[in-house]
């Protein structure tokens, strides 16, 4: 466990000295703020809820999380630092988990920054805290699943560009699974519907924490992390 935390610590440190984390955070907040300003400027008034904002947030995360995960393994594989990592007394899964936790920590910081909006709302209105909290939980689970997919994408290549493209591709695929299942006949439609990432979010934003949804995201992430570990392991055999 100590190795996992060591690696996570280094990744967090690396995030804060590289521009990408700041660029992503700034872009996210700028775009979100535009939506926020737009909604709150409606003369008919706006219900003090984050529902309108969680939507754009999920779409933004779909594109931005791969940019945060792209360097996690790809850069180490390109520069050769993976050689020192894999010849240290550290297990492969500890490497993957450590990097994953480092990325999650950054996502947590990112989401914390967006707490600004409910805060402002609470000054002017009476937001219902329950759905806001469960909404954030849903978003965090969703983002961590995207992070797991991004880490997996980063593990199969030495190029950060390829990693971000694969990550994006995977994210978009699992996003549109919902729509695909409408086009496809049985039994495939059930398969696609089950894989879809989006339909599970409205429950969270409405205030419902369904353990099935929580388990879904956790299992999804676990599978992606497992594949990432296998990929790291397979590097040794080439």
């Amino acid at each position, binding site marked *: 466990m100590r190795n996992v935390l060591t690696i996570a610590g*280094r990744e967090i440190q*690396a995030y804060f*000295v590289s521009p990408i984390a700041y660029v992503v955070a700034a872009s996210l907040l700028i775009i979100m703020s535009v939506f926020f300003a737009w909604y709150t400027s409606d003369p008919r008034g706006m219900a003090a809820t984050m529902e309108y904002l969680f939507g754009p947030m999920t779409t933004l995360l779909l594109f931005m999380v791969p940019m945060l995960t792209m360097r996690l393994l790809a850069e180490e594989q390109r520069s*050769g630092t*993976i050689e*020192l990592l894999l010849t240290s*007394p550290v*297990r492969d899964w500890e490497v993957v988990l450590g990097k994953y936790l480092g990325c999650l920590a950054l996502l947590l910081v990112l989401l914390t920054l967006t707490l600004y909006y409910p805060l402002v709302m609470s000054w002017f209105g009476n937001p219902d805290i329950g759905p806001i909290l469960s909404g954030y939980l849903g978003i965090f689970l969703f983002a961590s699943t995207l992070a797991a997919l991004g880490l997996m994408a980063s593990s199969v290549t030495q190029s950060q560009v390829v990693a971000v493209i694969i990550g994006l591709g995977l994210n978009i695929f699992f996003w549109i699974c919902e729509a695909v299942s409408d086009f496809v006949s049985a039994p495939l439609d059930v398969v696609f519907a089950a894989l879809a990432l989006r339909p599970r979010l409205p429950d969270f934003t409405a205030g419902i924490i369904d353990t099935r949804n929580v388990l879904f995201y956790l299992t999804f992430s676990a599978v992606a992390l497992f594949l990432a570990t296998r990929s790291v392991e397979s590097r040794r*055999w080439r």
Partner: protein
Amino acid sequence: MIEVKHLTKQYGGFTALHDVSFHVGKGEVVGFLGPNGAGKTTTMRILTGFMPASSGTARIAGYDVFYDSLEARRRIGYLPETVPLYNEMTVRGYLSHMARLRGVTRRKEAVSRALEATHLGDRADTIIGKLSKGYRQRVGLAQALVHDPDVLILDEPTIGLDPKQILEVRELIRELGRDHTVILSTHILPEVSQICGRVIIINEGSIVAEDSPENLVAMVGGGERLFVDLDAPREAALKTLREIPHVVHVEPGRQRGYEVTCAAGADCRAEIARRIVGSGWGLLEMRPMGLSLEDVFLKLTTE
């Protein structure tokens, strides 16, 4: 400390290592010599657990590098050929991070010791990305030392350094050799005869020779070589020299004079001098010509 038995490595159809066996005892400094592509880096990567062998076994301090990989890795300090470092970290931060990964308990002390041993004290808080190649190499060495491993595996530790830096690194390795078991790979020959007590020569995936530098030179040398310079017409000189008893081989030297090989054990010098002067020629120079490790190496790897 290091035991390699019948190590074989194949990448698809290509055999990188073929039935490689050797051992390195505790406290030895062994040089791993070979041309590029001979299999040195592959062997080191197998020893450090980075990749598995296709067949054969390797043990570090008694631990099998495949089945007890973690235990073996704990006892190894490795410096890869590319000296890969995290450029955004400071030297001290990086060494501390590596110390933590290797399970070092008294980190501050260990890092200080490593910094001192590699003379990095005044650069401890510099960002690695800003260091020159020589300093980067030292950081690489420092990270290999920070957990005080029993075994040091260094892949081309002086490549790309300027002559002054090379001397410093060699001196450092010599010092380290006193308390650690070291295996270093190189294709810089003088290095090997200066630092290593034993040399293993590898070519195209197989070991072609293994011995101390002196023994190797003697083995391939095949006898005493002398450089003789005289003022005499070539044909006559060659004929006379070849007729001397115990002279095995004569050939013209590169720019002047002749290289005379004497049978092992015999001393032809007096007779050579006598014959040259006796023929009325001037004996300009006669000196022993040791075979360099270079010649040994070339001879063993090109036949």
